[in-house]
Structure formats: structure tokens, C-alpha cells
């Protein structure tokens, strides 16, 4: 069965294996410490790298009408995923609006590294995808967060408790959010510099890309492993939510992408974006907008459950399902 072989082949990918190694290492209490500053820098490296590559692809392929449907699709996902998540959490999970909204924001937003891992999965399958998908990721980072805050406002009897200034700051911040600026900026630069410019940075931003991802996933594995201790705090419902929500988001997205008729590569990336949970942008935003929500919930879920699930099983699974419809 193709999915199985993919899932298994995933286990001969050094990136995934190093993620697992990091996870195990932490459980064995053997602290291989990759300093925080390195993690931060690598995250920046990835955003520049995929931005440049994406922009360069666009400069080659040119912008086709698909772009508009892609933007539209992104917005649909950015609206429905957090909505569904919120309703499940509030009415099936019986969580208060604040926590439901906080978690919904994470599942609505996206995880850069999951996206990056999906890209290297597609490359390994030499499956093409559009350069503008990087733009779609940047586009999908914030809207879901605001949809979730809106839902909290609507369902919360008394207005959300938070420092007044905050929501204003938040709008400003998320509009010019570090990663949004970096991704769009690199995308535009990739567009502008063309072949010659790219060749200049290729040996740093393109060739070592997968190797750097390997190191980064080792670190992610350790970060994820460290949060296992919080599983009890999370509880059974949220644990399963963190596994099932990605499936729901991915299925929904696979449906949409079939309607719009995107290529297999683009459809996979859309599904992965929908299925992934943010662990950088969303936690920071939510901590500011919904300080009363419990961070132990959303950080543990996105980092220690959904992220591993997506990179290990999710990506090959979504890819398999996608191909059933082709």
C-alpha cells in the first residue's frame, strides 16, 4: 500500500529520524542542549530560504490566475478551520470560550517547520508545487487568530478579560509580524533577483537546506519531548483533539483543493498548512490577547502532539488520500 511505503520511507528520511532521536534523547534525560539562540536563527534561515526559493519559482513560472483562487482558498481555510476547532472544543469538549478560542487560534494558524518538512517531502518525491505557496503560508498565519478572538468575543458572556491596549497592539503586530515580513520580504527579493541573484546565495540558503532542517528537527524533537510531562495537564479529550483535528482540517482542505483543482503538490501543502498548528506566532499572540487561557494546553498540544503527528504520519497520509482522488 502506497501510504505505508511512504510512511515507512519517511522513516528513512534523516530529518524525521533526528526528530525521533531528539524525542528519545529527552525521554532518556540525556540533555543534548541546542541553545535557544540557534533555534531562533535557524527559524529565520528557513523563512528566508523558502521565501527566496518561492519568489524565484514565481519569477520563472509567472503569476497565473490560480493565484487568486489560492488566496481565496487560504482565506476559506483560515476561516473554517478555527471555527470548526472552536465549536468542537466548546460544545463537545465543554471548554470555556477563552480556552476554546486560544486553542482554535493555534489550529487555524500554521507551523512553518511542518510546511518546510512537507516541502522536502515533495522534493524527495520530485512532486512540483507553486512558488506562491510560501505566500499562502504567510497569508494564513494571522487571520485564523483574529477569527478565534472574534469567536471568543461573541461567545463570551462578559467581554474578554485582557489589558485594553492589547488587542490594538495585536492587530499592528500580527500585520507586520516578524515571520510575515520575513516571508513576504524574501519572496519579493526572490522575485526580484532572478537566476543570477539566487545562484549567489544558493550554496548557503538552498544546498544545505535539508541538512539544516535535520539539525532543527533534532532540536524540535527535544522540545517536544520536554513537554510530555505536561500531558496529564492536557487531558484525554485535548490529546485526541490534537490528533483528530489535523485530520479534519486536512480532509476539508483536500475537498476544497479538489474543487479549485490545484496541483497535487499545492494541494498537499494546503492540507499541511490547514492541519498544522502554530507554536510560535499563535502562542505569542494568544498569550497577549487571551492571557486567561492556559498555555499548558495550547503549547503542549501543538508542539508535542500535533507537530510530531503531522511530520511523521500526517504528511504521507494526506499525500496518500490526495492521490486517491487523482
Amino acid at each position, binding site marked *: 500500500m502506497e501510504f505505508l511505503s511512504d510512511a515507512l520511507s519517511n522513516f528513512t528520511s534523516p530529518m524525521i529520524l533526528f526528530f525521533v532521536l531528539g524525542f528519545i534523547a529527552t525521554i532518556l534525560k540525556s540533555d543534548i542542549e541546542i541553545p*535557544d539562540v540557534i*533555534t*531562533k536563527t535557524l*527559524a529565520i534561515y528557513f523563512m528566508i530560504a523558502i521565501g527566496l526559493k518561492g519568489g524565484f519559482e514565481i519569477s520563472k513560472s509567472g503569476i497565473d490566475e490560480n493565484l487568486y483562487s489560492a488566496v481565496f482558498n487560504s482565506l476559506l481555510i483560515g476561516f473554517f478551520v478555527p471555527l470548526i476547532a472552536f465549536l468542537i472544543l466548546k460544545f463537545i469538549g465543554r471548554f470555556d470560550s477563552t480556552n476554546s478560542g486560544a486553542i482554535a487560534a493555534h489550529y487555524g494558524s500554521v507551523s512553518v517547520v511542518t510546511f518546510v518538512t512537507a516541502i522536502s517531502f515533495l522534493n524527495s518525491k520530485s512532486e512540483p508545487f507553486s512558488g506562491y505557496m510560501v505566500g499562502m503560508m504567510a497569508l494564513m498565519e494571522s487571520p485564523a487568530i483574529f477569527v478565534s478572538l472574534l469567536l471568543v468575543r461573541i461567545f463570551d458572556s462578559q467581554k474578554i*478579560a*485582557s*489589558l485594553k*491596549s492589547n488587542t490594538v497592539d495585536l492587530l499592528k503586530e500580527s500585520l507586520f509580524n516578524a515571520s510575515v515580513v520575513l516571508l513576504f520580504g524574501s519572496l519579493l527579493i526572490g522575485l526580484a533577483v532572478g537566476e543570477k541573484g539566487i545562484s549567489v546565495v544558493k550554496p548557503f540558503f538552498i544546498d544545505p537546506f535539508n541538512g539544516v532542517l535535520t539539525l532543527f528537527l533534532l532540536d524540535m524533537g*527535544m*522540545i517536544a519531548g*520536554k513537554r510530555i510531562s505536561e500531558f496529564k495537564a492536557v487531558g484525554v479529550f485535548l490529546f485526541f483533539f490534537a490528533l483528530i483535528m489535523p485530520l479534519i482540517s486536512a480532509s476539508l482542505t483536500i475537498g476544497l483543493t479538489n474543487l479549485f483543482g490545484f496541483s497535487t503538490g499545492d494541494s498537499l501543502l494546503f492540507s499541511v498548512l490547514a492541519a498544522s498548528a502554530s*507554536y*510560535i*506566532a*499563535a*502562542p*505569542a499572540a494568544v*498569550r*497577549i490577547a487571551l*492571557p*486567561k487561557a492556559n*498555555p*499548558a494546553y495550547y*503549547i503542549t498540544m501543538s*508542539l508535542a502532539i500535533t507537530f510530531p503527528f503531522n511530520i511523521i504520519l500526517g504528511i504521507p497520509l494526506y499525500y496518500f488520500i490526495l492521490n486517491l482522488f487523482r
Partner: protein
Amino acid sequence: MKKLEIIIEAIERRRVCKILDEVGVSGYTVIDDLQGRGKSGSKNASDPSNILKSSMIIVVDEESVINSAIDKLKEVFKFYSGKMFLSDIQVID
């Protein structure tokens, strides 16, 4: 003179400094990347979103100034985990 040690989530450090500027304290010193444990559980530095770190802001000023700072800051502590410690200190100049 009084010394106020403020321990606050990294993510709210900027706001605390802003408040201190508004109150008009004569100055402050910031120590970042603190770890720790309190009633809200333990804070450790390994979290990509940086919401599990703390910063310490040290303010030394006249009691009156410190008190008005404390009043303004209490609002922040309604929402964010942290602590404020007050002690006597002497400024050399």
C-alpha cells in the same frame, strides 16, 4: 530609597518598561532569559514562542515613585505570572 524587583513573563517585559517610563522612574535595569518556578508552574527557556521565559526589571527610586509604579503595574499582574519584591536600598553617588 526603595528597590523594586519585578519578575514578569518575557512577553510582557516591554509593557512593564513602558509603564515605568510613564510613571517617570529615574531608570531601570533589565535581566532577560530567566527561568524559575512559581504557583503557575515552572518556566524553562526551551520554548520556541518564548512565552515560557521571564525577565527581571530592577527599579531603584524614591518610595513615592516606586509606590505609584507598583499601583500601575498591579494591572499587569492580574493577567500575567510574575512577582514584585520590595526592599530598602541606598544609592551611592
